[in-house]
């Protein structure tokens, strides 16, 4: 394709910076965890299901959420830990739906294994509920064509990729990611938009996701 084909409108890269807000709420057992998960704000569920992605971006992408890690490591319940870790985050279009799935997983497990409610975390290893405050701001990077888009992807922060791939999809309930929307709408590149939309960003590290996005864009340019 013509790498210089100008987009109908430019793509403005944003960045998203997170601040962790403490709630003072903590759980030592599964029933306590469940009760708090049911009532905390959505930004709290978001924090505990997405924090790993940002803070451990270089690692293997597991474990994908704090609930799974705590249940396995602090309560010593590997089976429920595995069930929580395998919740397919990408299937849920809203935080509300994701929360319901986490609740259903714990409730179902407690019904099957009632003794699990008697497990408790040692003092000092309680689950502390934290919520994310997100600050979204425009960066100095703007792409007018696919070549510029690929070049900027090499430079921007992981936070920026994160914002356009995850935050747009789930927290803001946009359904897909910002890159696909622009590539299809402003460049008319339906196949590339679809290939990017199909990526499951939750099973990759953010650096791997960056590499894959660059590869997809560059291979389209060289065709």
């Amino acid at each position: 394709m013509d790498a210089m084909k100008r987009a109908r409108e430019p793509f403005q890269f944003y960045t998203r910076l997170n601040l962790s807000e403490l709630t003072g709420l903590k759980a030592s057992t599964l029933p306590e965890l469940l009760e708090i998960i049911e009532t905390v704000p959505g930004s709290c569920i978001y924090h505990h299901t997405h924090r790993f992605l940002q803070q451990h971006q270089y690692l293997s992408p597991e474990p994908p959420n704090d609930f799974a890690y705590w249940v396995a490591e602090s309560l010593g319940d590997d089976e429920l830990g595995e069930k929580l870790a395998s919740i397919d985050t990408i299937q849920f279009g809203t935080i509300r739906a994701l929360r319901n799935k986490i609740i259903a997983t714990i409730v179902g497990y407690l019904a099957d294994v009632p003794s699990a409610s008697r497990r408790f975390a040692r003092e000092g290893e309680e689950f502390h509920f934290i919520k994310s405050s997100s600050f979204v701001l425009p960066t100095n990077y703007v792409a007018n064509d696919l070549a510029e888009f690929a070049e900027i992807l090499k430079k921007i922060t992981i936070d920026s990729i994160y914002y356009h791939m995850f935050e747009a999809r789930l927290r803001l309930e946009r359904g897909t990611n910002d890159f696909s929307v622009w590539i299809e709408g402003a460049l008319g590149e339906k196949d590339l938009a679809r290939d990017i939309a199909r990526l499951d960003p939750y099973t990759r590290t953010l650096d791997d996701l960056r590499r894959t996005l660059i590869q997809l864009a560059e291979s389209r340019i060289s065709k």
Partner: protein
Amino acid sequence: MARIEEYASIVGQSTIDDLRLLGDKLRGKVIQHINSTSVGGGVAEILNRMVPLLRELGVDTRWDLIKGGEQFFAVTKKFHNALHGRREEIAERDFEIFRETSAENVRDVNVHGDIVFIHDPQPIALIERKTGNKWIWRCHVDVSDPNREVWEFLRDYVVRYDSAVFSSPSFSQRLPLRQFLIAPSIDPLSDKNRELPPETVDEVLRKYGIPRDKPIITQISRFDRLKDPVGVIEAYLQVKRYSDCRLILAGGGAADDPEGAAVLEEVREKAHGDPDIHVLLLPQNDIEINALQRASTVIIQKSIKEGFGLTVSEALWKAKPVVASNVGGIPLQITHRYSGLLCHSVEGAAFAMKQLLASPAYARRLGENGREHIRNNFLLTRHLRDYMLVFLSLYHPEDVVYL
């Protein structure tokens, strides 16, 4: 002192660009830090680095001090220990002394910031001067299990602030104000953390008579029971049965501390007769600490209680595999089996160290993961970003803020 651009080679230019964007959003606001001392102690150390960098980012940052006599600081020292959960006899007179000195500071300190950032309990009463501006209380102390009397006394002041900042989730309390989690950080360009030429490392080992003939396990900590140096020797002895190695226990600060001197004596006694244990009472020398960490095969931090435990970040930044107790801020720095190994006992520590000595490839991977974790979460640049975000949050209460 390093300039902000020098950090770009470590964290990437785009991270520095983000900091500048945030700085732009704070133009026109005066940020006033207030604490009790400009030298010595962790708070002064952080402010000495952060204030110039914030200014470089375009944030009008000032730094002022409160005054207090010997009696006042003796009382605040007691408060500090009591907040840490230590048993302290606190008399009504102590509270009176605190109130009297605070009243003088409320009268005399020139409070002029749009945002007033109060560090620790000593200047907490300045909140009396709150008008239309914004106030943050930054608690650097571990208040996970505080003496209730002291906490309730301080709480009356805390609740009048707009926000509070704590270093670990376990320090947060139920309070009617926004509370943020901001972990401390290390400076990758400081003497304690910067890259060192191999000759410097060799020279320090030579100076202390430590041969490099076998793997070295090291704990860097002052000689304090809460750091469990005797437990470290016990763990080392268990490891030694399977893997020949050396142990370095290095730290300072025992000279004017009777308890520290007693602990050092116990450690020396326990180490007696084993030429592979090196107990080093070091003066404050950051390059030597840096060199000892870099010379080590495994770093241990077997604390029983820990405020935050930044020695763990220092070791991980040097890509060293770390074994550390699951206390205080340590689990924020180490995710078990991903970026280090957490333990709860002497046996657990020994088992983890054996694993690391026997599996160098696994140890290397943990160390490399650890270094990246520190790069992303525990360097000074992240700390600067969080502070600027807290300042902005004072004007934006919503969960998603579009700037």
